[in-house]
């Protein structure tokens, strides 16, 4: 591709990142808190103990404040594929549209119908019917996560489809392959369990704050008890699926793994950086490096330094201490010994595929069916490299994801995740021992947990999404070919419009939330 309007591509990416990251501030809480509400209400209905109703109603109020803004930020995402990534929408809409529609029909209606009952139905229906509505809200929110993550998983590992040269798009061949795509399944479980973890951190943080203020001690401690168990189960499941995720990235997106680990040159028995940072950011210009990465000016000579776990990366990626993990250089320049083709070869092959498709169209139009068949054959042979063809004549750096961002976000996520594994048992133990009020340091850490949890959540998404650049669909479609035909200025206007609106609403949300929290359970 000779001319690319990078400003348009980057602003479109920035807008998607902005709306997605904002949306994700609120979604994890909805996913997890809805189940915690259901559990609290179940205890209330089973025991008839009014204390649990009071506890639930407090959390329900916070849930509602959060839910509204989650919905508000979410609607953009549903339509943004069309408005800003219109080429993408046709190229894969036959597959990608389905999970989005199913999400709407199966999950959103359930969620929105029963959430209204959960809030306003207290005096209108029986206790049991209300409890059912609360559970269905939780199931609905989590079902919506299932479908959107199926869609996202498909972008990372496109399966169950075939390119149709006559409609010039990819078409679904097997729905079950799309749904049971290993990447999608793992991603779903990883995401929702991490959301449960975050919700637990939220409940603990709010309760810890109230305990520090000496307010509503009993209610706060009961809430903490539920949250610490819920959170511990969540973090264990998150770590297990995180390990699964790493193995899948190694298999389907080796460049993402190389970026996550800042691995310059691959090796057998590759070590894992536990704590560290990319070398070129040592001289105090981390910000500049991130800015450079964002512009696509990655340096090929990345190298990281830090505390290493021997063989760690090979084990993490392939469960085999002697497995070969390719680095950035192996993938860009190829590694004959390990059977990895270079990007130059893949670009050449991709270009052959694109040109064959163009020639197929021409031959078909002219009525030369035999010729068309030949071109089609060539096209299919090289289809696996289709997306690379667009990079013909481009700087190879454009095929490398932003390494500093990938590395830092991945490691932040892992380090904080490990801390949560220790944190939840600490809380549980202290509540059970009934001495948590005396441990001011733990309560303060508890309050901090909300921020750490949020950072972990966003870092996870940044790892997943920045790490797969430049692909909107792995190996098939790069960002530069996916964008709509619009003016950069238009995207800038919507970007700032959303930035200002979301920020104003977020400030309002935080103010309302903190006011409600300060009032405590006896509101």
């Amino acid at each position: 591709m000779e001319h690319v309007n990078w400003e348009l591509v980057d602003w479109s990416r920035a807008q998607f990142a902005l709306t997605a990251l904002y949306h994700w501030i609120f979604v994890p809480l909805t996913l997890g808190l809805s189940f915690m509400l259901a559990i609290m209400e179940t205890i209330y209905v089973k025991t008839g103990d009014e204390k649990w109703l009071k506890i639930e109603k407090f959390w329900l109020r916070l849930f509602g404040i959060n839910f509204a803004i989650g919905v508000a930020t979410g609607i953009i995402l549903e339509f943004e594929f069309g408005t800003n990534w219109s080429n993408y929408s046709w190229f894969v809409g036959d597959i990608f549209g389905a999970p989005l529609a199913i999400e709407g029909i199966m999950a959103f209606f359930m969620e929105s119908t029963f959430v209204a009952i959960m809030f306003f139905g207290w005096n209108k229906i029986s206790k049991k019917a209300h409890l059912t509505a609360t559970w269905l809200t939780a199931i609905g929110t989590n079902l919506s996560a299932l479908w959107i993550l199926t869609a996202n998983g498909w972008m990372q590992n496109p399966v169950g489809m075939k390119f149709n040269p006559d409609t010039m798009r990819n078409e679904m061949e097997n729905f079950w392959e799309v749904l049971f795509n290993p990447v999608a399944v793992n991603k779903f479980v990883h995401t929702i369990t991490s959301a449960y973890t975050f919700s637990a951190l939220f409940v603990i943080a709010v309760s810890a704050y109230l305990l520090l203020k000496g307010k509503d001690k009993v209610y706060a401690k009961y809430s903490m008890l539920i949250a610490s168990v819920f959170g511990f189960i969540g973090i264990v499941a998150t770590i297990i699926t995180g390990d699964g995720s790493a193995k899948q990235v190694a298999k389907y997106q080796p460049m993402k793994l190389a970026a996550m680990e800042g691995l310059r040159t691959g090796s057998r028995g590759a070590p894992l950086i536990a704590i560290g940072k990319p070398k070129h950011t040592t001289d105090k210009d981390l910000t500049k490096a991130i800015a450079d990465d964002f512009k696509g000016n990655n340096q090929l000579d990345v190298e990281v330094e830090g505390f290493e776990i021997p063989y760690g990366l090979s084990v993490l990626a392939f469960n085999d201490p002697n497995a070969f993990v390719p680095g950035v250089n192996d993938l860009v320049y190829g590694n004959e010994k390990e059977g990895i083709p270079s990007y130059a070869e893949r670009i050449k092959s991709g270009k052959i595929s694109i040109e064959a498709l163009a020639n197929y169209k021409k031959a078909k139009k002219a009525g030369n069916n035999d010729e068309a068949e030949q071109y089609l054959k060539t096209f299919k042979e090289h289809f696996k490299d289709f997306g690379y063809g667009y990079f013909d004549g481009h700087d190879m750096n454009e095929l490398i994801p932003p390494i500093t961002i990938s590395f830092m976000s991945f490691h932040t996520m892992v380090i904080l995740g490990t801390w949560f594994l220790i944190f939840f048992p600490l809380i549980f133990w202290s509540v059970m021992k009934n001495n948590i009020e005396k441990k001011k340091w733990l309560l303060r850490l508890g309050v901090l947990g909300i921020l750490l949890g949020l950072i972990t959540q966003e870092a996870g998404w940044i790892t997943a999404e920045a790490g797969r650049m430049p692909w909107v669909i792995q190996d098939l479609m790069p960002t530069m070919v996916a964008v709509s035909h619009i003016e950069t200025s238009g995207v800038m206007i919507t970007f700032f419009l959303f930035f200002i609106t979301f920020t104003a609403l977020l400030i309002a949300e935080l103010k309302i939330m903190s006011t409600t929290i300060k009032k405590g359970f006896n509101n």
Partner: protein
Amino acid sequence: MFETLSYETLQIYWWIIISLLGGFLVFLLFVQGGQTLMDRLSNNESEKTVIVNITGHKWEFTFTTLVVFGGAFFASFPLFYSTSFGGAYWVWYAILFAFILQAVSYEYRKKKNNVLGSKTFETFLKFNGFAAPFLLGVAVSTMFTGSLFSVNKANIVHLGSNYEAVISQWQTPWHGLEALWTLEHLAFLQNILLGLSVLVLARLNALLYIRKMTDNKNILAKVDKCVPRHSILFLVLFLTWFIRLLFIDGFAVNPFNNEVYLQAHKYFNNLVENPISLIILLLGLISVLYGLYKANFKKEEKAFWYLGVGTILTVMAVFFMAAFNNTAYYPSTFDLQSSITLANSASSHYTLSVMAYVSLMVPFVLAYIIWAWRAMDSHKLNEKELEQETEKY
């Protein structure tokens, strides 16, 4: 079951679902209509809160239906989704923006320390109430008046520049807003007429719903005053739009070579040649008129349902007229052959049949919505009732 159906039948099936969702969406816009009436129908703050809570208990339905409408369109006719959303950028973003503001405004309006103040959130609700129905009406009208875009699926193989590689390209920098001032064939007039019709209809449906849901005498008296005016205004606006529609040139498709051409009073022909559209339209119109009769002369609460069902059926018939009987449902006046038809925009046979199985869930969804609706609407809402509620807007 569904996979044995022909490709064409599946496309028709999915267009019916889209039309049904469109019908429900327009009906549910009564929530927006109510938002525009909060000042008009109230004497004081507490009455306003009653009105806000009446429509507020239903906002998720409209919101969700819009999202599902978009998602279902994406899954079944992706070329429309990519062309219209990526092209008529400003129209769609204006609509979406209005909905972003709505969701939080209900929840935050009366909360302490809400930073922006109640008045601001009420303004957001009014903005959503006016902008969303009007712009959705304008967007639907362009299904008959056309837009300026080109579509070439082979663009994806262009290696020259990323602009050239885009399949659907809008041809004006206004990205959809030009529907409001396109002079050719008085398209702007037609588009604005439908926009206003949908807006007035949304208010009318809201008036009847509020009448059904409250026993506050002051509010009811004001509703009584508003209903006749809105009824007349709606009929004038909608019938002008509709009668003009029957006489304008339409975008016909030659079934043998898929060529798109202009045909005189095409949409009139579509009614005559496709009796199903005609029957649904007549049923819809009769139901609307009966609802208006009951609302104006009998002041019956049930009028809301007659008008509602009439709204859904009429919108469905309008959608049918746009796409069935070899018609391009999203025509391009820039390049006729770029016009979007059911056949050239649909998902594959496989995807449509998978989605047809998914559509079997719709009756279940409708069933629980009806259950929930009934449970929630069993009590009338007034200031006293609201005082006892722990959760309210």
